[in-house]
């Protein structure tokens, strides 16, 4: 699904990723952990195509296509999804128009006609119930005036609507209370299947109690320094990152 080889990336003159290697197979859930400043969010940004980041070396193969060769829109259309750590408020653009444009962008890329009105509404209904996003939030402007938890639920709602091949969740647990964490995790777990992969970026182990990973990787100074099973997360929780 995703093959990252020797990835180097920087912002301005600051090198952040220093030869990162990672393979994610179909249906797998990989947790990326690491101390602050280790490059976790940079990895998410580079994968999703944020323009401030410059890739200086390495390659990323995404299901047979060169991910780094595409702009952010095309990456999403090819099936990559980034759940933002800080979802953006866009006043005046309704959540529904936003999702319709997104789905139709993806459909056009695949050579399909725009989604029919009824099918769209049906899909909205299903996906919204998955993360308990009520009608009021659906009809408002994108993230405008949403609480932290509502914004994260909206991210997972969008993920469900877009049915990505690979979802990157960037610190999705930050700013969530325990109820919101449960709802968001339930949404993610309901989306898990044998084809869809997840990369769960988190600082804390608690999210991984809810979204149980197949693999855990520790990132430090822009490289993966340790990999293991889900028990690695527990060990990190207990001993801290200094132990690595």
């Amino acid at each position, binding site marked *: 699904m995703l093959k990252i080889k020797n990835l180097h990336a920087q912002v301005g003159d600051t090198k952040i990723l220093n030869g990162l290697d990672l393979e994610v197979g179909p249906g797998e859930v990989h947790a990326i952990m690491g101390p602050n400043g280790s490059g976790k969010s940079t990895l998410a940004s580079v994968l999703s195509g944020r323009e401030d980041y410059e890739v200086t070396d390495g390659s990323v193969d995404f299901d047979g296509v060169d991910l780094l060769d595409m*702009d952010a*829109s095309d990456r999403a259309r090819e099936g990559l999804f980034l759940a*933002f750590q800080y979802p953006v408020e*866009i006043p*005046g*653009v309704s959540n529904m128009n936003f999702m319709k444009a*997104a789905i139709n962008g993806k459909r056009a890329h695949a050579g399909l006609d725009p989604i029919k009105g009824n099918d769209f509404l049906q899909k909205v209904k299903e996906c919204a119930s998955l993360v308990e996003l009520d009608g009021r939030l659906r009809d408002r402007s994108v993230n405008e005036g949403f609480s932290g938890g509502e914004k994260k639920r909206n991210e997972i709602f969008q993920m469900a609507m*877009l049915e990505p091949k690979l979802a990157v969740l960037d610190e999705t647990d930050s700013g969530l209370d325990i109820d919101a964490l449960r709802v968001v995790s339930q949404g993610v777990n309901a989306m898990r299947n044998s084809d869809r992969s997840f990369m769960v970026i988190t600082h804390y182990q608690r999210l991984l109690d809810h979204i149980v990973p197949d693999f855990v990787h520790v990132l430090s100074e822009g490289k993966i320094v340790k990999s293991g099973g889900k028990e690695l997360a527990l060990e990190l929780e207990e001993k801290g990152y200094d132990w690595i």
Partner: protein
Amino acid sequence: MTGSKESFISNFQAPSNSHELRSQGHQYMADLPVPTRKSERWKYSPISKLVNSSLMTCSGEGVVWPEEILPNPIPFLDSYRIVFRNGSYVASLSDLPIDDDVVCAPLGDVEARFENEYHKSEWIGAINASYHQNGLFLKVGKNKALDRPIVVHHLTDGENIASFPRHFIKLEEGAKAEVVVWSSATDKSSGMCNGILEAHIAPNAYLVIDKVCNEGGEIFKFSYEHICQERDSKMKINTFTVKGHWVRNELEIVAQGPGTDSVFNGTYMPSGKEHVDNHTTMDHAYPNGTSSELYRGIMYDNSTGVFNGKVFVRKDSQQTNAFQQNSNIVASKGATINAKPELEIYADDVKCSHGCTVGQFDTEALFYLKSRGIGIDEAKALLVQAYVGDVIAAVDREEVKNEVMRLYSERHRWA
């Protein structure tokens, strides 16, 4: 420049009415200078190219309305209509209200007493005073609410045309009226359209004006609105510049009594080499007045723009609440906007806020939209629609709102 001043007006002809105003106009036209870049009010809107051109007024007789322009520019709006072509009244396309409490007629048929003194300070105003042609005369009687909006449609059609519309509106105490001031021009047209609108709103009356400029061709378009508001009256004016080669909207609102409420909003999205200038003045001279102003623009290509918003809060106008916001997105490297808020506040117990911004598209919002598979052009279109849509949403009439949105979307190819 002074040499061309006389030759510029040499082919203008005036109707024979309204002697006093015209002779005043001629006097000031001779005395006032042609505005140049040296004058602060015209610094970013030079008109030398216009003054060096040779234009003519039209008699308006024996003309055929062009097929490409609908006489009723808002097809779904149930409205009255008064139509002008190159400054002259077109009776066959007009549909005026008939009501005992309403006088609605072409200005040329009635005696209107204008009070604004624009012609005494601006050469452009003096030309209009001298050569003004026809326009709307509307008087709505006490406590009468006009049952339908009136669409005032002015068309410029032809090359090197000079036209001088002049409109007069008076709402008596407690009256209410909605007026749509629409201007259009055929693609082959050029010249100048120089219009003045004066409105008097008596106590507790309410006037709504939606002003839309949707002109093809290469017209220098000047419009000056002078609005006097008496005690506890309300007014709302929306100024939408949809399309126009060179457009200057000048709006002056004068509170002439306490408790007035004034709302004035506008949008502009020039592209190519278009020029749009919005000059507004809100004069609070009495207590307890409120005003709210919101102008938003997006500058494309090599377009140029001006926003100048003056707010006066004079000494005795305590408890005034004045809000002004002007935001601009410069979407291309070649585009320019000169934005200047000017607040002069002489009363101490008032609430005034203002903001003025010039920026680019919100890159975070663009990235968020792109990260969901929305292409860059569509992402920008969504942001633009939201940005100006917010201002257009304040229009009362759905039909007007929809038509303005439709025209903008057609021009800027929103989905």
